[in-house]
């Protein structure tokens, strides 16, 4: 896909976590270390220095999800595909 195929800017994407499925296996944090840290119990946590401030409406679980920069989209898709609990989704916002 080339930029010529995108005359308008592509929609932004957000990573959304289904907390009822997530068991903190950590695959997503391993694949997206720039975006995700792990909390005290191993569950994915958006990095404070990342694009999604913790506790904002962009926090995972509700709302728009964790914004994924263009450069990380391939890794984000990989994380969605490899999550052993199928707890991740990429959503267009």
């Amino acid at each position, binding site marked *: 896909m080339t930029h010529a195929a995108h005359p308008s800017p592509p929609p932004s994407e957000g990573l959304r976590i*289904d*907390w009822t*499925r997530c068991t903190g296996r950590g695959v997503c944090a391993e694949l997206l270390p720039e975006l995700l840290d792990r909390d005290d119990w191993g569950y994915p*946590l958006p990095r404070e220095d990342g694009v999604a401030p913790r*506790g904002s409406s962009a926090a995972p679980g509700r709302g728009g999800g964790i914004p994924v920069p263009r450069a990380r989209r391939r890794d984000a898709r990989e994380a969605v595909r490899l999550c052993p609990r199928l707890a991740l989704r990429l959503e267009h916002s």
Partner: protein
Amino acid sequence: MTVLDPTTRRAGLLDAAEPDPDAHRGRHGPLPEIDLVTELQRAGLTGRGGAAFPVWRKLAAVSPRTTGSAGPSTRSTFARRRAAAATGPVLVANGAEGEPRSAKDRTLLTHGPHLVLDGLEAAARAVGARRCVLLAHPDVVERVRPAAAERGIAVVAGDGGFLDGEETAAVARIEGRPPVPADKTRRLVERGIAVLNVETLAHIGLVARRGADWFRSAGTADEPGTMLVTGPGGVGEVELGTPLPEVLGEVRGPVLVGGFHGAWLAPGEVLRARLSRESLREFGAAPGAGVLHVPAPGRCGLVETAEITTFLAGASARQCGPCRNGLPALADLLHRLAAGHPHTAPEIARISALLTGRGACHHPDGTVRLVRSALRVFATDVDAHLRGGCLATGQSSPPHAEAPR
């Protein structure tokens, strides 16, 4: 439970409630045919279960008859409307009342069940509902069964648990699944399901008969009408915008506003606060489902908060990791804080930040709101506890502990 005299200037819900079906029909007559969704939009009635969502929007969202006035038309709106039109929406009357300090829904279902059922029937007619279900707290479920059966409304007994009334948990119970909150990927209205608190429905029952102007004759311009409140003296009906001291009567001291997911107000704040979202916002609080909890005289607010947090940790559905792990950790820290352990408050702040926005439902966020408000309102008392004292009990405080800081 005590039912208090309403403070409202106009006769409202508690006045209109008739437990006997014939007396109810004789007094109120049949439900008139009106454009209910438009009337509710004019009335400005918001949900009385805690979230204060505009009721007309919720009904419009599940109504296959609505033509897009409820919000921007999107692909999902279209698909949802098509699906809802095919099967008809489902309306759920939520009388689960899981909030431990709330008694207003049970009071209403006991004293005025027909008013609730009128509202359900009027709403069902307005949206062309194919099914109505009443979820009732176990204390009152047998009392409402005959009245509901008379109108062909199914009744499901809740378990009285804290999360029972969370709307996706309520729907799961009705559908025969384990009653726990669901991930919000697909909103309930997209499935054609609207969950409405029983008090909200009783207001609908009156708006359907008396109209929007009557409803707006109480309350404020932005937050019209009345709401039921469970306070230190029992259940009462209060106009939105009423000063809190007027609602509380002689009671003084810190007040937990909005229930266990609510926020503490300091005694001085209580004196200038009103029962409205606009007034309470300044203190990080909201009327919620109308719970005003006042600790017993001499009771320590920090100990009270620690015990409530322990209760909330136990009430977790244990589905989401941050809630399952974080709430017990938070409760433990609060007990340590109340016991005077040093360096506890920063750790409470850190764990609180870990929980915000990280769950399928509002339970971690609501708990964090309570805890943060306690640290703010009882900040001076935290220092007293660190020195082995307590401002509320006056227990073994060194002389300087009560000095203004």
